[in-house]
C-alpha cells in the first residue's frame, strides 16, 4: 500500500532505493559489508602460514640464542659449562623420546593434570553457580576468592602434605585450590555482567527460573566462563609442576620425577629436554583454550575478522 507511493521531493537516487521492495534497502544495506570470502584452498594455505610463521620465528630465536650462548663459551669450567648446544640438547630429547620412560612420565602427568583440572572445573563451577545466585554470599565470597587467587599455590603444599601425605591427593588438592577460584570467578563475572537489556527482553518473552538460566544467563556468561577456565588451567598446570617436584611419590614416574632425577644426576641436558616437553604441553593446551575463546567471541561478533586468524 503506502510503500508503492513515491514522492517527488526525493532525489532520483533515493527514490530508486526506497522503491525497492527488498528488506535491506536504505542506507542500512551499506552496513552489511561484503560477504565473507569463501575458504578456497589458496586462502586457507595463506591463513595457515600467517598463523604459523610467528611461532616458527619464535622457535628459531630461542634456538639461535641457545646456540650463541653455547658458542660464546664464556662460562669456562663453571657449572654452566654443562650446557650443551641445541644440537646436543635436541638429540638428547630425541633419544629420550625413543624410550618408554618419558612417555610413561608424560602419561602420568597428563592424567593427573586432567583429573585435577576436571575436579577444579566441577568444584569451581558449582561454587560459582551457587555464589552468583545468592547475593549476600556473592558479596562475602568475592574477597575470599580474590584472596585465594593471590596466594601462591606452592605455599599450600606443606598443608596438603600434612593432610594427605606424600601422594597424588595432595597434588590434586593444591591444583583445585589454585584453579577453582579462577573458574568460579569467571562464571560469577559472566552472570554479573549479563546485559540488563537482554534480561529485560528475556523476561518479557516469558523466560524465568531454570529456563532463564539455561537460555539466557549461562550462554551470556560463556565468554567470561571460558576466560576463567583458561586462567584456571594456567594455575592448575603450575600447581601440578610444583607438586610433582615437591611431592615425590616412590615408584611413580612423572615429568616432575624426571626433572628431579636430572637434578640429582647433574644432567643439565636431560633437564632441558624435560623442560621442553613441559613447555610444549603447556603451549598446546593454551592454544586449545585460546581457540575456544576466539570461537566463542567470534560467534557473538565480539571479535573482528582481523583478530580472528
Amino acid at each position, binding site marked *: 500500500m503506502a510503500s508503492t507511493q513515491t514522492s517527488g521531493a526525493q532525489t532520483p537516487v533515493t527514490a530508486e532505493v526506497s522503491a525497492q521492495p527488498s528488506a535491506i534497502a536504505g542506507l542500512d544495506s551499506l552496513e552489511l559489508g561484503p560477504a565473507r570470502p569463501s575458504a578456497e584452498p589458496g586462502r586457507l594455505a595463506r591463513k595457515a602460514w600467517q598463523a604459523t610463521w610467528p611461532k616458527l620465528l619464535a622457535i628459531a630465536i630461542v634456538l639461535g640464542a641457545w646456540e650463541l650462548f653455547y658458542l660464546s663459551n664464556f662460562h669456562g669450567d663453571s657449572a654452566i659449562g654443562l650446557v650443551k648446544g641445541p644440537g646436543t640438547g635436541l638429540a638428547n630429547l630425541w633419544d629420550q623420546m625413543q624410550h618408554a620412560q618419558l612417555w610413561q612420565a608424560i602419561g602420568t602427568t597428563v592424567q593427573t593434570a586432567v583429573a585435577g583440572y576436571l575436579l577444579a572445573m566441577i568444584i569451581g563451577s558449582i561454587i560459582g553457580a551457587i555464589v552468583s545466585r545468592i547475593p549476600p554470599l556473592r558479596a562475602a565470597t568475592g574477597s575470599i576468592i580474590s584472596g585465594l587467587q593471590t596466594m601462591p599455590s606452592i605455599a599450600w603444599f606443606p598443608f596438603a602434605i600434612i593432610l594427605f601425605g606424600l601422594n597424588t591427593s595432595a597434588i590434586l588438592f593444591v591444583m583445585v585450590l589454585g584453579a577453582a577460584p579462577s573458574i568460579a570467578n569467571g562464571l560469577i563475572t559472566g552472570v554479573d555482567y549479563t546485559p540488563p537489556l537482554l534480561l*529485560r527482553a528475556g523476561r518479557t518473552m516469558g523466560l524465568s527460573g531454570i529456563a532463564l538460566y539455561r537460555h539466557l544467563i549461562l*550462554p551470556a556468561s560463556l565468554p567470561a566462563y571460558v576466560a576463567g577456565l583458561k586462567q584456571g588451567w594456567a594455575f592448575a598446570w603450575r600447581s601440578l609442576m610444583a607438586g610433582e617436584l615437591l611431592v615425590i611419590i616412590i615408584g611413580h614416574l612423572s615429568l616432575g620425577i624426571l626433572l628431579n632425577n636430572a637434578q640429582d644426576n647433574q644432567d643439565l641436558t636431560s633437564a632441558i629436554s624435560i623442560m621442553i616437553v613441559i613447555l610444549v604441553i603447556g603451549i598446546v593446551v593454551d592454544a586449545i583454550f585460546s581457540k575456544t575463546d576466539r570461537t566463542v567471541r567470534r560467534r557473538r*561478533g*565480539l571479535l573482528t575478522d582481523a583478530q580472528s586468524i
Partner: protein
Amino acid sequence: MSVIQRRGAPPENSPGASALSDGHLPAGSGDAAIRIADVTKVYGRGPGAVHAIDRLSLTVGCGEFVCLVGASGCGKSTLLSIVAGLDTPTAGQVDTAGRRVAIMFQEPALFPWLTARRNVELALRARRVPKQERTRRALELLETVHLGDFADKRPHELSGGMRQRVAMARALAQDADVLLMDEPFGALDAMTRDLLHDEIERICSERALSVLFVTHNVREAARLGDRVVVLSSRPGRVIEEYDVPRTGPRRIDSASVAELAGRVTDRLREEMRRHG
C-alpha cells in the same frame, strides 16, 4: 475542515469526534486494550527521589495505534516498563485485561549467540510452542519481516535495520495482542526508518495489534499514530492528545503529517518553555 482533531476542541459533527474526551475511548473501538489509571512513579526516596511520572492516565483502544511523544527524561520508557510488567508503579493501576504484552526497545536486544531464526524460536519456546512447529513458525515470522534469506545469520552479521526487524519478528512470536515500542527506530537512518514505518503499519493492521509507540520524533508519531499523545516534561503527565483519522495511506512527507507534526512540535515547545 482540518483532518486533524485536537482533543478537547469543540466537537465537530463527525460522529467519532463527539464521543471524545480525556481518559475515554474513541467511539467504535470496543473495549480498551491498555488502561493506565493515575499511574505515578517515583524512583528512590527522600530529597534525592526522582518523580518520573505523575498521575498519568491513558487508554489505548483495541487495534489502536497510539504514539507517545515528550521531552527526553519525561518518563516514557518508565511508563512502557510499567505497562510491560517489568516495573511496578508507585501508585495507580495498569490494566491490560490479561492480554499478552510484547515490548521492543531502541536496541534490538537480540541474543548474540543465537541466529535470527533461533532468536525467534526461543520466544516461541518460552510460550511452549511444540518443537516441531517452532522452526516453521519462526521462518514464517522472518518472512513477514522480509528476512527469510537471513534466518541463519547471527545478529552481528545483520545491519541495524535488519536486527530491528528480527526483534519485531521475535515480538510477534510472543503472539501478543499489545505491542509496546520504545523508540524502536531511533538509531536508524531516515530511509531505513521509512521502510520500517510501512512494515510496522502493515503488520499491526494485519494482526489488529494495539500499539503504544514511544518516540521523540514528532513526524514519526504523526506518520504512524491513530492518536498522538503529548506528555509534559518530568514528571510526565498527558497534556494534549491529537486524533488522526485514517484517511488512507500516509507518508512521512505527506502534507497532513507535516501539519500535525507542526502542531505537536509547537505544543512541545510551549511545554519546554514553561519548564525553562
